[in-house]
């Protein structure tokens, strides 16, 4: 019995000794911010499809830190304090390429907004249920020249993730001559399928010719 106790104690001692406390502090400074145009967040497709890049100078830092932009235009990264360069990945978001990097000094929690220049934006969106349809209106305006508008789409989904990549409940697109007059708000309507229960989520996306990603309005929850 005594021997057993000694063995047990020795074992516990070994275990205790083996458990060295982690001597590397985790990165605990939060860099957060929004991708903005005229001080308004830019809605994008989520799930890592739109990214920013963080680079740190120095021989040890050969790889970028990919920063995923959430669908409401926010981003966040847990970092060590330091000086970083934030770059906007080329041909990635629904905005013009801008290869200038942004200097970011991270000292504790830091907030940095990333300005971008879209081609077309949608503002003053109102989305509401009307009978068995979801109707939406929004004012689409061109904010940079050089590219034409391809389509304006109202997306409808069962979850709050609403964009081109999801298996949607429904969508409706205006294109061509329906977009000839952008000075007036555009009206879109999509039927709510019978399968939808409880609530649906909707937002408007604007597609620019030759730009892979759409500019989205904020997601709106519609209780049925």
């Amino acid at each position, binding site marked *: 019995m005594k021997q057993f106790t000694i063995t047990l104690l020795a074992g516990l001692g070994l275990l205790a000794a083996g458990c060295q406390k982690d001597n590397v502090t985790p990165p605990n400074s939060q860099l957060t911010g929004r991708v903005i145009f005229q001080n308004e967040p830019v809605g994008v497709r989520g799930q890592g499809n739109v990214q920013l890049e963080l680079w740190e100078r120095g021989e040890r830092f050969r790889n970028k830190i990919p920063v995923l932009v959430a669908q409401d235009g926010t981003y966040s990264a847990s970092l060590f304090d330091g000086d970083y360069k934030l770059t906007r990945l*080329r041909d990635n978001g629904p905005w013009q390429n801008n290869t200038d990097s942004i200097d970011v000094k991270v000292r504790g929690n830091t907030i940095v907004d990333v300005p971008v220049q879209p081609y077309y934006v949608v503002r003053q969106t109102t989305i509401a249920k009307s009978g068995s349809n979801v109707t939406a209106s929004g004012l689409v305006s061109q904010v940079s020249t050089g590219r034409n508008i391809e389509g304006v789409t109202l997306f409808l989904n069962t979850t709050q993730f609403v964009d081109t990549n999801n298996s949607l409940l429904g*969508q409706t697109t205006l294109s061509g001559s329906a977009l000839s007059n952008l000075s007036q708000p555009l009206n879109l309507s999509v039927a709510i399928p019978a399968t939808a229960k409880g609530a649906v989520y909707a937002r408007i996306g604007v597609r620019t010719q030759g730009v892979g990603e759409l500019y989205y309005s904020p997601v709106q929850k519609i209780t049925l």
Partner: protein
Amino acid sequence: MKFHFKTLTLSGALLLGLATSCQKDFLERTPPSIILDAQLWNDTGLLTGLLANYYDRLPTHTTIYSNWAEYAAYDEAMWSGNGNGPNDRFTYGSGSWGNWDYGLIRDINLALENIDTQSTSLTSAQKDQFKAEFRFLRACMYFELGKRYGGVPLVTTQLIYNFDGNVTPLQVARSKETEVYDFVASELDAIKGTLGNSGSVTRANRYIAMALKCRAMLYAASIAKYNAQSGLNISTTGGEVGIPASLANSYYQKSLDAAKEVLTGPYSLYNGNPSNKGENFYEAITRKNANPEIIWAKDFLTAKDYRHYFAYDNIARGIREDNLGSSALSPILNLVEAYEYLDGTAGTLKTQNAAGTDYIYYDNLNGPFANKDARLYGTVIYPGTTFKGQDVQLQAGVKLWNAASNSYQTIEGGLASVYGGAAFPNGDNKLLTGSSGPQANQPEVSNSGFYLRKFIDSGAGTSSRGIRSDTWWVRFRLAEILLNASEAALELGQTADALTYVNRVRERAGFPANSLTTLNLARLQNERRVELAFEDHRLWDLKRWRIAHQVWNGNSSNPDAVAYVLFPYRVVRPGSAMDGKYVFDKRVSPRYRTPRNFQLFNYYTFIGNDIRNRNPLVVRNPFE
């Protein structure tokens, strides 16, 4: 005498000495297993073998002998084999269609230089001809690179490292996209007179060179025009990607001129079976002797054990000759409906009455396909047709009339099952499900209601693994050149000529003479789709017209982006005039619902960091 070890060794050594001393310069023998430069570059037989190797290495995307599963990735067919094939693909990858094969370019450059420096016994005419053929292959390769990546580094000499630690002389920057197409055109023009090989359909001659030029110039022209017109303007600042719209007309003109040159050649549209236009179209592609339509093909030959498994993998299930395989690719309704009716109306199959309240009842399984463009028969095995003289039984099941609910009940069974027996005591003991299906979710039987006919060998035993198939792969044929000429003429405003060219192709397909009197690009796009289905054109055509991202937009409610199927049923409704007739269900493919999703970055394949690490002068493609 007693043998000592010493004596033995000594005598052995002496014998060995004797044996070797007899051979003069025994260290300088010709190796029996290596072909030396001096032999290769002076022997026309060996050089022809070398050429065969290079022809074989020309890149393709989807062909009957390689990568054929990818036919199912677009809107011609779906995958009905084991696994999912390319049909659960959420999007096309950024490296899709890539083929950065500078190994072949280097081998050709080496051959060109070695013929100059090492050939001593060839006549200068022979040298010129071989060099012309090598340059043709190089031009072909650069066209293939250009249509995948845009402008690529134009390397025309061997790049040799001199071990001085400096690799920068070996790094060649990307040329402009226009420069690649211009290079292809000028090379083909330069060699067309010296190519020889007249009458050959497998080795390059002047008409094959002009056919290639015709296609390449058409690609350049439509990229120039539609990259701007679509508003996409995909380009790089250095012009490595993107062709100025102002160059479109000159490229169209070059394409038209090249097409006219091919049309002066000894080719004509195949019309060996004029009484049966459908079989005639099938023969136009697969018939190998005395086929005046084929310009350039990659041939196979069973007698030389050069054959492929395309028939084994894709023969209709009910008539397969092996115990495995069959049916991997099944053409989809999207393609079938692209074939017009001979009276010029749209090809949509009529399965429901005008009000959409009831089926249209057909007496025969092939009822809806009556008076269709004969190319449908030559491309696709549809219900109620035969292949190899055998019936391809296509019936998904029966529609049993339920008078109480005033509707049909769908009953489906196993392959070649009977509606009767223990399972269906009230059945009529007639056919339930055909021996070739279709079935919605079973592998190795059509899941779409159709089978492939084009390129499937009709010879006995060719769908067995023991015999296999030797149908050839058609790279160029006259119908494509006519359609190229028609498109180029249309874009140049020469509509009358354009109509003449396209109507020749349509007349062979069973349409009356001058069946089209007006023409627009959309008509021609459909004409190319139905004429050249399964000939590795569809993807590249949609890319150069810059409509791929709209046709395959990843939207599951877009009928062009999802695969549709057509299931035939026999009506069981005793006592009614409809009993025993056939009805057809159109629906989205139950097995795969993933829409085709072609994104903007797919217009130019990403070059990849691996290549850019090795050559920093290579700039990224757009979106990369």
